[in-house]
């Protein structure tokens, strides 16, 4: 019984790596251009801003929340970035301001969810609409074109490795350390598992929740500085496409949407799966209209398998205890 349970548990943790390898094999057979250092550098550059948003999203989902406004928040921050770049502002000031804008937008979500106890999905659906309108008003029928903010925030390569990967690596390393080694990380897991128990245990749930949305906001601001360099232009709906992709990366990685279970490294795995899928199907010659179909199916299948596996493992362990 117990042996059976651990096998299933192991299968569950091995599922994503197996899927990733299968994906790599399939796409290298389908397209000769897929398996090359150049293509992978390309994938990484295109995924850098998404990676930062997904990292922040992981924190929010770990505590049982969600943020569907993150994409438009990237758009709003990116508008400020592109506009400031047009007026020859130094790069450090642009980054600082973009992060500040992101923080402010994240703080609004944090205040609604943590202080006013608005359910996260409702609060962020509302702010998503508000940010969309804000971006529309700022944009005012004028596309803002911009060069990359700095070479470290762009796809420029050193020895074939895109510089922007350094930023992503630092963010993931720091967040991994915080989640696994710091009290703040433990608090996030505790709140995600059982908010009432966490509060009774003396965790300042309001403060921790607010901070998680704030951190996501800050990362959104940082992502916007990369987004501008990657896309080169800010329009009325810029950034919107990142929202669902970020949430998908987190849940496909295996972090529980109910909160309390997961890790930032899993998000990295889920992200890799999704961006390689997007790149691979384009190289394999599938029309881009199919993109959403693939991602929707991936979310549903990955989450379903995860839930079914979890359910049978808990049933097994409960059975062996009883």
């Amino acid at each position, binding site marked *: 019984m117990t042996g059976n349970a651990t096998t299933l*548990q192991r299968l569950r943790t091995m599922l994503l790596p197996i899927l990733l390898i299968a994906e790599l094999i399939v796409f290298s057979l389908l397209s000769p251009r897929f398996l090359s250092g150049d293509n992978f550098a390309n994938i990484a550059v295109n995924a850098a801003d998404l990676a930062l948003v997904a990292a922040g999203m992981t924190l929010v989902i770990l505590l*049982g929340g*969600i943020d569907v406004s993150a994409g438009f928040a990237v758009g709003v921050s990116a508008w400020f970035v592109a506009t400031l770049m047009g007026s020859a502002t130094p790069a450090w000031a642009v980054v600082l301001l973009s992060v500040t804008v992101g923080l402010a937008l994240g703080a609004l979500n944090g205040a*609604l969810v943590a202080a*006013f*106890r*608005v*359910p996260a*999905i*409702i*609060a962020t*659906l*509302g*702010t*998503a*609409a*508000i940010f*969309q*309108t*804000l971006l*529309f*008003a700022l944009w005012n029928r004028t596309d803002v074109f911009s060069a990359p903010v700095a070479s470290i925030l762009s796809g420029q390569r050193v020895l074939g490795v895109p510089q922007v990967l350094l930023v992503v690596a630092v963010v993931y390393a720091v967040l991994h350390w915080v989640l*696994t080694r710091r009290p703040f990380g433990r608090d996030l*897991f505790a709140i*995600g*598992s*059982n*908010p*009432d*128990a966490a509060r009774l245990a003396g965790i300042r749930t309001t403060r921790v929740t607010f901070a998680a949305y704030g951190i996501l906001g800050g990362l959104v601001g940082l992502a916007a500085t990369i987004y501008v360099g990657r896309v080169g232009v800010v329009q*009325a709906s810029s950034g919107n496409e990142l929202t*669902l992709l970020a*949430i998908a990366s987190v*849940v496909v990685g295996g972090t*529980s*949407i*109910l*909160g*309390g*279970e997961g*890790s930032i490294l899993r998000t990295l795995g889920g992200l890799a799966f999704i961006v390689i899928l997007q790149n691979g199907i384009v190289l394999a010659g599938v*029309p881009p*209209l*199919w993109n*959403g*179909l693939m*991602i*929707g*199916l991936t*979310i*549903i299948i990955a*989450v*379903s398998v995860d*839930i*079914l596996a*979890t*359910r049978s*493992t*808990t049933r097994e*362990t409960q059975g062996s205890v009883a």
Partner: protein
Amino acid sequence: MNRTKTVTPVLPTAGRAGSPQPRRRLPGADHAWASRLLNDRNALLLGLILLAGFVMSLLSPYFLRVDNLLAMTQYGAVLGLLALGQTLVILGGGGGIDLSVGSTMSLSGVVFGLTAVSLGLDPWIAVLVAVVAGVLLGAVNGLLVTVVGVPPLIATLGTLYLYASAALVLAGGVDINGFDRSGFAQLGQSAIAGIPTQVLLILLPAYGVLAFVMHRSRFGREVYQVGSNQLAASLTGVRVARVRTSLYCISGGLAGLASVVMASWLLNAKPTAGTGMELQAITIAVLGGTAITGGVGRVSGTFLALTLVVVLNSGLQLAGVSNTWQIGLLGAVLIASILLQHLLGRARR
């Protein structure tokens, strides 16, 4: 790592099902204030509608003209069907929400268009096909939620992607038209006794049936039981999974119906017809007093909230305010209505 992995699968559900809400409303105990609040809410909405109507008629001399009032309700018919479905899904509790209604509408609309144009069937038969398609798409949501156990937010987020993209793929990325036969345009473009046909023959009957079912039938009672206390409901013999699956099917079917109404109104089946409609549908349901935690709310509240949103939108349109501003206003209204709910709830306790 290991700690969280082994402990958590049991905890979240236990914590969620048992934590804040039973403390607030145990069965029977504060039922009186809950119903009073609901009555107050409908009165409040009615007051807001009158106020909004008054302000809009000052802003634009066209607001109270018959043709404008007609156009307003035409737009409201589509939105209303989606909002009614959303209300039911949320009432069913368990984190119930249907983010895919907009995409379901798009995909059913494409199915309608293809049936009527590519297959060349009579548009009225295509209407049935589209509604059935909507029910099936809703059933997929329902089964993912109840049988597989995927949280509704993620299940319907996945199908939001899936259905929207399937609509585009099926339609080849272009609008479908050419189904104006057998008087199909009558549904969306005519009026009977001054009331647009789709309101008189689709929206109002749908509302009437749902109001009856929710407040006078056994199924309706079961929905409220499941929504307010899943465990108690299942102990009294209510089949929780079946009730919830039905709710997603109803929501899908109403989205299918909405797609047909939209198609006959615009004489065009757009593969992106429903994009963003989920936000409006959820906003209207919540604004109408449906508690996002389930079990509390009435379809009459949704109907009044629909009226309010339609009045606001059309007034802003007449005042020349762009569509995107209306989206932002809707977002603000959504948040404000939840804050208000909390304040009222606190004041009454």
